[in-house]
């Protein structure tokens, strides 16, 4: 095992991408993820890889699309308003089935909002945000260690399914430093017979999303649907933190889930049995696992740094069998441990 080092989230993510074999990184500056670009700008040339500051978020993500279409591992990173601009390319990447990795360190919104950590992009990133029937695979790390591990994994999984894998962090995770053991390279590689490398010794091939002929797009959509079903079957990740004997289940992801864990530990000291269910993949969402974890409990409390965006998925999972409450802080606010604890105490025994 590697050495424990104190790393800032942004730097850990960047280094993990390098370990994963990311050879091409394109981005446009935006707070609070600028350390990723700075890290890449410093390291990529030394490794004989490509760092390019693009003219816009739009261009950066299209550069990723172009580079990844030739078979290399490519990545871009940004924060909320920048991710909104990248959504155009997200849809093309999905339609054309190009593997790509994108990091979103969310900040407060709407609009320019602020630069504090937030979870206001759940709807944009998990439910869609761009045109057409498609999904991105969305990972929601909650610690610097997990951010590094999932960034590495994102490259493998993106390649395996020819899908866009999105790391959905927030400004706190981006800026936070924690001890981290950098992951080892997985060594996982997938054949890319589809890659554009020139029609030498084979037929010419095309990467595209336009499918005009009668019924052809529907066939393609069905093919994507099959792929998404395979992802749903194999890639769901979640953490069950003291849920088994709990009366109350707190559901939260990313930074908000850490607050919930702290609240649960305090509640347990007071004899209140609470637990945290933490989705690690937001798409595919761990509906079944959450449904099982919540079964027979007294109450489910969804906690977000937004105004109830994940709440709908929690309600879908729980299907009305247990009452679902909500506690959220928007605009860069973070629900505090005291607030969460008080809310659970208000449910009584």
């Amino acid at each position, binding site marked *: 095992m590697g050495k424990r080092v*104190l790393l800032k989230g942004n730097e850990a993510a960047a280094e993990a991408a390098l370990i994963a074999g990311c050879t091409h990184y394109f981005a446009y500056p935006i*707070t609070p993820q600028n350390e990723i670009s700075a890290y890449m700008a410093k390291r990529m040339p030394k490794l004989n890889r490509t760092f390019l500051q693009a003219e816009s978020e739009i261009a950066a993500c299209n550069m990723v699309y172009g580079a990844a279409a030739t078979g290399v591992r490519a990545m871009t990173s940004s924060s909320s308003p920048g991710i909104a601009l990248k959504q155009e390319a997200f849809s093309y990447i999905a339609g054309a089935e190009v593997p790509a990795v994108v990091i979103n360190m969310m900040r407060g919104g709407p609009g320019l909002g602020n630069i504090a950590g937030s979870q206001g992009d759940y709807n944009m990133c998990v439910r869609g945000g761009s045109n057409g029937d498609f999904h991105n695979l969305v990972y929601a790390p909650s610690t610097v260690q997990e951010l590094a591990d999932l960034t590495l994994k994102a490259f493998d999984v993106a390649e395996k399914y020819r899908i866009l894998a999105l790391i959905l962090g927030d400004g706190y995770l981006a800026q936070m*430093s924690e001890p981290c053991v950098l992951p080892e390279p997985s060594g996982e590689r997938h054949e890319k017979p589809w890659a554009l490398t020139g029609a030498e010794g084979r037929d010419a091939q095309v990467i595209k999303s336009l499918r005009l002929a009668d019924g052809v797009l529907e066939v393609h959509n069905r093919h994507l649907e099959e792929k998404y079903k395979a992802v749903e079957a194999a890639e769901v990740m979640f953490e069950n933190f003291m849920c088994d004997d709990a009366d109350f289940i707190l559901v939260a992801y990313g930074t908000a889930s*850490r*607050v919930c864990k702290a609240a649960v530990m305090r509640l347990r000291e007071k004899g209140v049995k609470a637990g945290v269910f933490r989705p690690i993949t937001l798409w595919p969402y761990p509906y079944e696992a959450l449904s099982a974890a919540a079964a027979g409990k007294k109450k489910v409390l969804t906690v977000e740094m937004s105004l109830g965006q994940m709440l709908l998925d929690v309600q879908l999972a729980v299907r009305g069998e247990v009452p679902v409450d909500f506690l959220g802080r928007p605009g860069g606010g973070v629900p505090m441990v005291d607030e969460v604890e008080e809310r659970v105490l208000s449910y009584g025994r």
Partner: protein
Amino acid sequence: MYSEILFAGFGGQGVILAGKILCIAAMNDGKNVSHIPSYGAEMRGGTANCSVVISDGLIASPVTPMYDIAVVMNTPSLLKFEKSVRPGGKLLINSSLIDVEPTRTDIEIIKIDANDISEKAGSHKAANMAMLGKLIAVEPELCSPQALYDALDTAISERNKKFNPVNIAVMKLGGGIDV
């Protein structure tokens, strides 16, 4: 132990760095740590702060509205964060620069002439090291003095490593250790 600490001051006083040094030291002593700096727009105003958590168990939440210890290095920081110290907590004040008296009576007030100590040890800008030295003197559970000195090796850039002997001297003086 579980300790939530705030470092605050103006840009250039090295409060973010002080937090980082403490984190590295505590990490190398086997503790769990987290460090969140103020960043971006907040920095443009010239004030800076960071939240540090040190624990021998799991650090669940890295964000907190209240702190066990606040280390304040200038007057605006005192005015802003005095209320953020938990009752029974500690407030470390850089009395070289802060001439305002704190009003809280339910916390322990610890004054230290950080800039003067730094000057005495031969540096114009190591007041943050004096504060760190004092911090671990009054809160020895956080990390060992040696770990703090050793952390400089990792935390300080190559360019500034030549100042480390002075930094260590300031830390010791700040902690009341004769050098």
